[in-house]
């Protein structure tokens, strides 16, 4: 899952980047409104966390421009503006959620996860896949109640495939969803992750839950 945080406070940007990456998200961090708009236009994010008072272009303008461009990305406004009219204005301009600073990091994660589920049409955070259970709220994959101990990168890959089950995702799509825009993953990173994932899922010998479609990519059916 890939997030874009547009926030002018460098400290908050750093904290959120660290925390959300630890939570298993790929996160792009931008401190400027115009630059944030540029990032949002040219990348496919699951959720954008948007501050309102930003240098060069305010958050509401960024929001309006994105909606005018037809971008359907879920946007969560995170602002110090706490007045009801501010929230109403933000939601009316096309935001999907609104949080007031200061905020709880756990609540922010829960709201982001809700928007992610909404994007993929999932109401239930617990998704059953054969004998496995993917809990997107706790961000764990388990079998018979036993956590499989996925790394954040493995979890991100599996979650992306699970939420898009039935669809074949190309390596580029998976790389884009799994990595920050400024990181340069190697060409085999997806194969390596798929391989380790299959081992942890116990698919070494038999039929794998994660299917390979030669020339297209990977999918979970």
């Amino acid at each position, binding site marked *: 899952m890939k997030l874009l945080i547009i926030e002018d*406070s460098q*400290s908050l940007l750093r904290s*959120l980047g660290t925390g959300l990456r630890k939570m298993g998200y790929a996160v792009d961090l931008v401190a400027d409104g115009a630059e944030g708009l540029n990032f949002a236009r040219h990348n496919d994010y699951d959720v954008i966390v948007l501050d309102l*008072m930003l240098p060069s272009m305010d958050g509401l303008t960024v929001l309006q421009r994105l909606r005018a461009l037809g971008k359907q990305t879920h946007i969560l406004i995170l602002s*110090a503006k*706490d007045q009801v009219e501010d929230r109403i204005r933000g939601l009316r301009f096309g935001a999907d959620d609104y949080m007031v600073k200061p905020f709880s*990091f*756990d609540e922010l994660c829960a709201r982001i996860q809700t928007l992610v589920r909404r994007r993929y049409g999932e109401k239930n955070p617990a998704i059953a896949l054969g004998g496995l259970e993917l809990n997107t709220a706790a961000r764990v994959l388990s079998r018979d109640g036993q956590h499989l101990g996925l790394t954040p990168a493995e979890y991100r890959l599996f979650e992306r495939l699970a939420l898009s089950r039935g669809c074949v995702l190309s390596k580029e799509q998976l790389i884009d969803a799994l990595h920050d825009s400024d990181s340069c993953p190697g060409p085999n990173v997806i194969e390596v992750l798929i391989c380790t994932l299959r081992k942890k899922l116990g698919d070494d010998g038999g039929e794998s839950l994660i299917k390979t479609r030669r020339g297209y990519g990977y999918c979970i059916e």
Partner: protein
Amino acid sequence: MKSARPPRSIRRQLTIQILAGALVMLLVAGAIFLGVIHRQLLGDLDRMLEAEADTLARNAERKGGLIVWDVPDTYSAGARQNADPAYCQLFLEDGAVVGLSQTLGTDDLPRLEKRPHAAWNARLPDGRHGRLVQKIFHPAADDTEQQIAGEDPREQTFALPATIDQASLQLVLVVARSREPLDALLDSLYLAGGAVAVALSCALAWLVRRAITRGLRPIEEINAQIAAIAPDALGTRLHIPAPPIELAAIESTVNRLLDRVEAAFEKERRFSSDLAHELRTPIAELRAACEIGARWPDDPESTRQFFEDTRTIALQLEKIVATLFALSRFEEGKLPLKTQRIPLQALVRECWQHAAGGAEEKRLRFDEGLPPGLTVESDADQLEIVLRNLVDNAVAHSAPGTVVECGGGATPDGVELRLVNSAHDLEHADLAHVFDRFWRKEASRTDRRHAGLGLSIARTLCEVLGLDLRVELSEGRRFEARIFFPTVRREPALSIS
């Protein structure tokens, strides 16, 4: 224990005072009117009695040693049965009765001693209140020889005592009538007058109350409009259609007051909002850093960064609190001032040196054109704070590579100091806010080095020092701050303890 006095009511006070005044005037006017009528009617009665007395006097003649008095039928015994019989009696000066009307029977009328002509009230022989008129006259002399007695039953004769000097004989005639018809008429008049007075008083009370109620209606309207102004609708203004002159002034004054209240509320609201925002973001930063740092404590690099961020945020908050506290102290006037002569050029250069680091980063050039030897009388420490804030502000908001100019000199009234810098994004409308606390042109407040308090501090301190600080936006978007040091030092706007 004294009980609290009830609040005064203009309506009640005006009603009572106007009514009391009107009633007194009505009573006085009524009394005068009725008094005149009373006097007129009584005068008519007296004149009628005097006319009768004249007739009766003419009917009294001296014939030899006799007084012959012809008394008309209206005074006969038969007239006693009339509703309003008349009485008359003729006396000698010594009180001897010369003659009397038959209506008196055996009674006498009273007479007044030593009063030639008089009219007075007295009780009549029949017991009724009467009006009497007295006339003293010389009877006419009739020297013709005529049969006297027994010819005319109306005639009464009286033999004059021989001792009386007939030539100078004076008779006293008293004529009387009942005054009850007059009294009845007067009673009716007084009754009617009282009824009219009561009716007029009621009508007057109603009219006065109605007039006052109508007159006070605009005040009630103003009161209702003021009461309807909600705290969140301070933009409301009073509007009284066609107000009277007195209330138009009140309406205008209240509206001006509301303008000021609204501006003060707006300023306060903006300050609270700015302060809240100023604190919300660092608190959010602190909370996020703490929560994330506590959740993943095993990452030494992240933990170090969180601590570093926390320290930076704490220092920013400390600076905000210290600045607000200093502003509060300035405004309370708890600032000891030591006035001395200060060389302005040296002080300005020192302030520029303080900001030189930031100026160098932005490649700013300082063009200082103050005349050497220019001095001002002020508190050196506080003036330095003012100038440092102005210079810092100029450096912070100047476009890179531009010039910050400083000039000034002596004027007829004092000394002026100007500091001019480029301000490419500032609008004229912004000038109204530059002294507001936490106001910054850019809403994002990304630059945490400046909290938007510098100009606010400079202005407050200038007020304390009795200086005049003004700002304007000149040609080419140049922001100009001017401090005027008056020769005759103004009283500080804030009291100094």
